[in-house]
Structure formats: structure tokens, C-alpha cells
């Protein structure tokens, strides 16, 4: 790598690419070449910076100036002012929320200030397609340390000491899981990286694979060395083409450098890594279904035991960990178990990446120490609720998780604290909802997802979630009965009790938690035929405010069913029996006299 006076990092994550970062990258390269600055300043395409909603993101080092929503048209000014003359382009820097003033520097932005990046440490910082940049950030140091100074047992003990737990959602202690597979007798063993990320709104695995793929490979190498595995698979959904492309490149580079293949670093340790593209079935994130899919079978879970550690892929001892789990391993081996265990709570150590989405000012990826509160994530890092609306709930843990309320905002996040209140850590999806979200509708959304993704093998999940969905459909249409709430509660409990795999065992969680914390909303739908949030179309009522109406007749003209009557210059009226709630009248009204209630 050459020496440059400045590095310009352009985000090349999927979010920024779709908002146009490739054009920015091209324009920067051209602009610098035209100015003759291309020998002094290096332009780097990096992985995700996390603050996707502000993309495309450009960071200029050594200053650490953070530019957001940069377009190709902004580039000439950026080159001329900042890179040539050294003056920050004020109009492109991050504008603080509320009382926070303009913040030009990366590390001062509240979104990043509170974060503690271990898994994401290289994301947005290095070019993920260049192994040298990973090595420059201490990449593969852990691998060298492990195979030259540590026994496989030492590696497992270090992971145990770190307190790392499965980041895919289950939270099983990683070191313990590894020790099962290490102890299991077998001539051939496998390690698998579960990259079948499928929770609506979750994208931490994708960003890790795209932003720091070598860290995943190094983590898997360390696991393979510790457990005696000689072959590995990354099971990645085919809908992540960029991640797969970068993984392929990563495997090529690591093989070329001697980190993958036979006799790694001149030792007896050999490890071969393959990529298996999944077809996007959510249930393939369940480990037995995932292995069936790799074997070429339909992805359906099977009962355990036998556990994968004893009989896994093709009947051989196998260890499966999630992308984020693997991403933490190299740092743990490099810095020691105690270093990692110093972060977090008593039983949940280290950090966790959350995908912050929904009605929050800054959506994106955030990595925080365990024990951080939901309030800190939503209000400090996320910058609060969009458009100054009122916070209502967070859905934590994806479709298997639960909806938590304002009273849970100050709970320090850990595996235990979340399950106590009926949610789960899950893969770390965090969907923020405001006063406009109907909780019944939210529960229905998640259940629709799990029902559509149920593999169909066991009756509770296949038939039970469908029945719950039917009931929810009735309730949001104003046709529910008070008994429906008992049915939902009973069905939910039974589905959790009797389902075969984690999908079914957790699918009722969104319904059960909203029933627990937002029962009044369900009751309003049933007893008053009213949606308190005004979100359920079938219960909505459009009403003309007679005081505001100027009698322009525009509403009556656009109404497709002739439900509006009235004479010119006189207040109009909507016939509720005819109204189909399309909302065309409210859009057409020039004086905003039509309310949706």
C-alpha cells in the first residue's frame, strides 16, 4: 500500500450503493485525477457505516469529516474545497438533531459516540475487497497466534472465558457449544456460518459480510482449529449478491495468502471453505433445516437430539454459528477472553449489533455493549422518534420477538432481561413504533410473515399460526369478539408448547406480548370497532369538518363510489355506509377539512 496524505472513504454497502454511492465514487476518482491529486489522496470503497438513512456517506481522513447524502453533483465542490483547499464543506456535514449543533467529525456524532464497535470495527473503515487492509487492522493475527501458540483447547477456553453467546438469537454459550463439537468423535467435522438472515428489517449479517468478510473467515478458521474441523460452509441467502461476491473474493485472497487450504501457515491444520447459496427460506436459519438445505434436501427442521455437534451435516459432527458470533471471535482471541468479558452484564457479555429501523430519526446499524438500555439506543443513538411523534413500542428480536413499551425503555438489554418481559434478543432487529402504529396490525404483520415462512411440517406452526392470523384479520376488520382474545392467548400458548422448532415456538411472541402490554388496543378494535392509532383501514372513518369545508365539491368529484353529497359552497357529508375508505377525498380537499379517524 502506498502512502497518501488523505483517505476518502466512500460507503459501498448495499444501502449506500442503492442511494448512488457508486456514482460518487467514480466522480471522486475522476475529480481527483483531473486535479492531479490522485497520487496524494486515495479513494476507498468501504463496507457499511451503519447510518444508512444518511447515505451515501463519505468520510475524509485523517480529519474524520463525516459527509452525508453526498451526490455526484456535490463531488466537484468537495474536491475543490475540502481536498484541495482544506476547507470543510459545511452544507454536506451531518446536521445534529434538536439542540445538537452541526457535527463535522465522525466520532462526535451521537449516532457513533455511544457505540462500541467490536464486530463492526472494520465496517466502513477498510476496503473489504483488499486483504491487505484487513491485515493492516490486525487481521489474521489471531489465527497466527492460535495455530502457533495455542492448543485447540486454549482457544475454546478463551472463548468460554469471553462469555460470548450465540448472536443468532438463541444465546447459547459459544465456547460450550464448541466444546461439544470438539469432544464429539469423528473423522470429519464441519463448521458452518449461518448467514441466512431473514428477519424483516434486520441486516447486520449482510453488512458484516459485505463490510468485513475476512473477519468472518478468520473466526471460522479459529473455530475449525479449536474443534478439529477441516471443512466449512457459509450458508448465505442468494438475495445477498454483494455479500456473496465479496465472500468469494475473500476466500480467493485468503487461499492465496495461505490462510485457507492445506497446511495453513505451515502447520498440520487444513481448512477448506465453501459458499452455499440459500433460496431465501426463513426456516433455513434453523440449524437442522440449514444443514438439510446444504445436503440438497428441502429445508425442514428435524427434532433434536441428535444434536449437530454429534450428527450434523452428512451425519458428521458440525458446529453452526451466526455471522455476528463468528465476527467477534478473532478480536476475542487477539485481545483475550477477559477483555471481552469486561463489557456487558453479568450473564450477557460483550456487545450486540442492532438493526435500528422504523419510526426513528437515524435508522441503521448500531453496536452497543450489553446492558445498554433501549432508551439509549432509540433516543440517544437513534436520535428519537421521527417527526417529533410520541414513542409507543419497540419490536425487539424480529418476528420471533416481542413488542415492548415505554415502561421497558430503561431495561438494560441482555438475553435474560428480554426474555423476562416476553421478548427475545433474536438476531437484533429493533423496529421502533410511534403513536400511528396499531399494535394489533403490527402483531398481524409479523404473524403473516411467520405463517408464510412456516415449513409446514408440524401442525401447531402450520395450522395454529394460520388460525391466529385469521382471528387477527377479523379483529382489524372490526369483526372480532371478546372470546377471540382468549382464543389468541390459548393458541399462542399451545403453539409455543408444541411446535417442533424455534420458528413455531416463538412465532406467537408478537401476539402474546401485544396482548399483554396493549390489550386496550385489541379491546378498542373489538368492543368499540375503533383503531386507536387510526391505522386499520377497515375501521377508519373519513369525516368532513363542516367548519372547514368550503363546499368546493372536489371531494365529491373524486369519490369513486359517490359516497359524498352536498351542494356547492355548502359543507359536504360522507355516507359512511357507502365509503370504501380509499382516502381520495382527503387527498383532494384543498383546505384539509377531511379527517381520518
Amino acid at each position, binding site marked *: 500500500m502506498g502512502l497518501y496524505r488523505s483517505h476518502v472513504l466512500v460507503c459501498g454497502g448495499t444501502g449506500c450503493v442503492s442511494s448512488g454511492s457508486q456514482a460518487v465514487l467514480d466522480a471522486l476518482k475522476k475529480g481527483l485525477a483531473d486535479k492531479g491529486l490522485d497520487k496524494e489522496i486515495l479513494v476507498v470503497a468501504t463496507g457499511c457505516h451503519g447510518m444508512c438513512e444518511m447515505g451515501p456517506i463519505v468520510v475524509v481522513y485523517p480529519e474524520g469529516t463525516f459527509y452525508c447524502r453526498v451526490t455526484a453533483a456535490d463531488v466537484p465542490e468537495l474536491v475543490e474545497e475540502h481536498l484541495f483547499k482544506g476547507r470543510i464543506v459545511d452544507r454536506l456535514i451531518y446536521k445534529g438533531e434538536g439542540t445538537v449543533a452541526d457535527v463535522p467529525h465522525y466520532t462526535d456524532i451521537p449516532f457513533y459516540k455511544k457505540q462500541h464497535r467490536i464486530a463492526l470495527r472494520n465496517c466502513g473503515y477498510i476496503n473489504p475487497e483488499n486483504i491487505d487492509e484487513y491485515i493492516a487492522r490486525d487481521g489474521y493475527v489471531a489465527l497466527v497466534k492460535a495455530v502457533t501458540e495455542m492448543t485447540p483447547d486454549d482457544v475454546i477456553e478463551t472463548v468460554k472465558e469471553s462469555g460470548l453467546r450465540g448472536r443468532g438469537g438463541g444465546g447459547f454459550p459459544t465456547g460450550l457449544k464448541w466444546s461439544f463439537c470438539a469432544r464429539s468423535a469423528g473423522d470429519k467435522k464441519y463448521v458452518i456460518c449461518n448467514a441466512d438472515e431473514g428477519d424483516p428489517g434486520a441486516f447486520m449479517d449482510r453488512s458484516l459480510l459485505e463490510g468485513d468478510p475476512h473477519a468472518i473467515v478468520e473466526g471460522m478458521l479459529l473455530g475449525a482449529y479449536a474443534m478439529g474441523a477441516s471443512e466449512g460452509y457459509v450458508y448465505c441467502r442468494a438475495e445477498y449478491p454483494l455479500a456473496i461476491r465479496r465472500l468469494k473474493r475473500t476466500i480467493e485472497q485468503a487461499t492465496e495468502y495461505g490462510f485457507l487450504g492445506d497446511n495453513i501457515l505451515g502447520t498440520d491444520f487444513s481448512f477448506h471453505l465453501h459458499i452455499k447459496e440459500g433460496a431465501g427460506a426463513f426456516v433455513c436459519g434453523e440449524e437442522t433445516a440449514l444443514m438439510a438445505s446444504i445436503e440438497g434436501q428441502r429445508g425442514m427442521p428435524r427434532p433434536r437430539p441428535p444434536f449437530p455437534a454429534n450428527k450434523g451435516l452428512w451425519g458428521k459432527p458440525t458446529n453452526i454459528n451466526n455471522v455476528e458470533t463468528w465476527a467477534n471471535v478473532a478480536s476475542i482471541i487477539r485481545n483475550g477472553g477477559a477483555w471481552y468479558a469486561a463489557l456487558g452484564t453479568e450473564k450477557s457479555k460483550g456487545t450486540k449489533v442492532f438493526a435500528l429501523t422504523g419510526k426513528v430519526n437515524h435508522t441503521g446499524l448500531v453496536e452497543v455493549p450489553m446492558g445498554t438500555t433501549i432508551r439509549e439506543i432509540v433516543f440517544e443513538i437513534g436520535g428519537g422518534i421521527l417527526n417529533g411523534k410520541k414513542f409507543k413500542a419497540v419490536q425487539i428480536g424480529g418476528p420471533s420477538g416481542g413488542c415492548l413499551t415505554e415502561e421497558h425503555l430503561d431495561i438494560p438489554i441482555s438475553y435474560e432481561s428480554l426474555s423476562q418481559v416476553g421478548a427475545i434478543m433474536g438476531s437484533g432487529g429493533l423496529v421502533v413504533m410511534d403513536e400511528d402504529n396499531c399494535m394489533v396490525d403490527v402483531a398481524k404483520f409479523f404473524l403473516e410473515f411467520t405463517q408464510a415462512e412456516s415449513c*409446514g411440517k408440524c401442525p401447531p406452526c402450520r395450522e395454529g399460526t394460520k*388460525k391466529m392470523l*385469521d382471528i387477527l384479520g377479523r379483529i382489524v376488520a372490526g369483526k372480532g369478539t371478546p372470546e377471540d382474545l382468549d382464543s389468541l392467548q390459548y393458541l399462542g400458548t399451545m403453539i409455543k408448547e408444541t411446535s417442533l422448532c424455534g420458528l413455531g415456538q416463538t412465532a406467537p411472541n408478537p401476539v402474546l406480548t401485544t396482548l399483554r402490554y396493549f390489550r386496550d388496543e385489541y379491546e378498542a378494535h373489538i368492543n368499540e370497532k375503533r383503531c386507536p392509532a387510526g391505522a386499520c383501514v377497515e375501521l377508519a372513518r373519513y369525516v368532513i369538518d363542516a367548519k372547514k369545508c368550503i363546499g368546493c365539491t372536489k371531494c365529491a368529484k373524486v369519490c369513486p363510489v359517490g359516497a359524498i353529497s352536498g351542494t356547492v359552497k355548502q359543507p359536504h357529508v360522507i355516507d359512511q355506509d357507502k365509503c370504501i375508505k380509499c382516502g381520495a377525498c382527503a387527498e383532494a380537499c384543498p383546505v384539509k377539512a377531511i379527517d381520518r379517524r
Partner: protein
Amino acid sequence: MQGIDLTINGKKVVAEPGMTILQAARKAGIHIPTLCEHPALPVAGACRVCLVEVEKNPKLLTACSSPVAPGMVIHTHSPRVLEARKAVVELILIRHPLDCFSCPSNGKCELQEVAYELGIRDSSFKEEGDTCNSYALEDANPFYVRDMNKCILCGRCIRACDSLARYHAIDFQNRGIKAMVQPPVGRDLEHSDCTFCGQCVQLCPVGALSEKASAGQGRPWELESVKSTCSYCGVGCELNIQVNRKTGRIANVTTDYQSPTGINEGRCCVKGRFAWQYVHSEDRLTRPLIKENGSFREAGWAEALSVIAGRMNAIKEDFGSDAVGFFSSARCTNEENFLLQRLSREVMGTNNVDHCAHL
């Protein structure tokens, strides 16, 4: 081999290592209802009917898939188990038609038995406007009928096809409530790898698959099972001919997957299972016929055999041994074919002996 001590429903039970809870319970004479389980098939753990409570285990376990461990204390009919089991069966019954009256499986339907055992008349979850199945009856082939409205998706047919027939002609398709058992995408059974061996039909616990020729031939309780050997080929598969006691006619042919004597271990082919109607055909020859003056007359075996022996000896005397030839059948056993070539070579003195498989 050291036994494993367990307690099932308060009773001390000794199981063999490697046994599942279900196997241990069966050995001890304790009944646990099942639907997707069949001793001839790999374990699926799909139907959730065999859930049992094991002390110190927070979750209910499927008896069919959980191995026994020393000191396990198992409850197969505790209130918690019964409630869960009932909920599962009622969920299955939401979409299962209750037309048992006309169903070919009435009397041998395992869903019917489990529901009866649990005291379920109808699903309490069923209500108007439910997602009902309305699959068309599939009866294009001459062997069996598929009524997917009755399918409970236990997967026994799939496992039978995969692990017994080894054709893997069918598998689950689609997800969620739309999941169903189908041949490969876009094909019908008749254009799939299905060989119509019918093992899936016999192993179907409900009436989703039924033998076409057996329709109306007798209810399960009217049938008497007669052990026999298939006459179609030399393999000699053991079959159970199901004879209707009232009519004396064959109503069905099944196999026994647990038979200690059957060399086929329950497997058989399309002919053995489905092509038995010839037995009652009016055209079937039941006695030897001798042709005289251009027309046949019925005769006894002794007379017929002596006519054959006489004519063959006459040909040998007039024209020599090689004027006679013997042709045997693949449907005969090896022993029968061996005897025929001895008859040819040693009795008749000719090497003119061949076999239909050469054709």
C-alpha cells in the same frame, strides 16, 4: 447389554440402550398415540401427537424421537400432555373433513383413533370462513386415488417413497398453510418418478391415499388377512391378501413391514399390490383344458399331465430329443427353473432350454 432404568407413569421400566421413549413404552405395554411415526420409516417428529412430559425437562418431548436416558421420569398422559395433545389434534382437524362415513379409511384411520381416544368430536378451532382445502380428487391412474383434502401432512408417504421405495417421487411443496405433498413442480403423478408401488398408500394414516380397486369391497373390520406369496415373479414377496368374510372375495392386498418371514420386508411392486383383480376374472382358467376335435374340454390334472407326457415321448421317439424344447419363466423361482432344466436335460435328453428373460 446393560438395561436403562426408567419410570413411565409411575411404573418401573427397563429399556434397551438406543431405544426411544416410544419404543420403551411400547415394550412395557404403555400406549402413546402417534400419527407420523411408523416402525418401518425414519423418525420425523412432525405430528407432535406423541409429546410426553419428562421431569426436569422444561419442554415437552416427542416420544418417537427422544432417546431414553437413565433415571428418566416420564408422564405420557399428564394433564399438561393431554392438553397439548388435544390442541394438536384439534389443529389438525381444522382442515380435515369429517366425512368418515364415506371414507375408505373408516375403521383403520389413525387420526380417527387418536381423536376418539382423546374424546374429540370436532375441532373447537373450526369456524365459518376457515381456509378450507378444495383440492380436486386425483384419480387419473388405475391404481390409487389421492384426496389431498384429507392429507394431514405427516410425511409418511414421502418417507416411504424415499426410504422404502427409494424413488423420492414426492416431497413437500410450498410453505405455511399452502404446504402439500406433490411430485416435482408442475408435474402430475402419472408423469413423475412414481412407480405406483403403493407403499405410500398403505402407510397413509388417513384416507388421503386409497386403493382404487378396493373401493366398496369391504370395510377394514370385515376383512380377514391371509398370508400368501406373490405369484407375479420369482422374488416371492410375502403379501397379505385381505379377503372379505361376507363375500369371500379379495378386497385388498397389503404387506407386513414387521413380518419375520417376508423376504420383501413389507415392500412390493405395483403388480403385487394392485393387480389382483384377475383372481376373480370370469376368463381365468381354473382347470386344465384338453383340445379335442378343434375345441377345448375341461379335464383333471392327472389326465392333462399324462396327455402332455405321452405326446412328448411320442415326439422324442419319432423325431429325436432335440425336436423338443423347454421354455421357462422369470415368474418361476430359481428352484423351479432348476428343476425344469433337469427335466429337459436329464429326462428328455435335450439342451433346448431357455428362459423368457432372454427375449
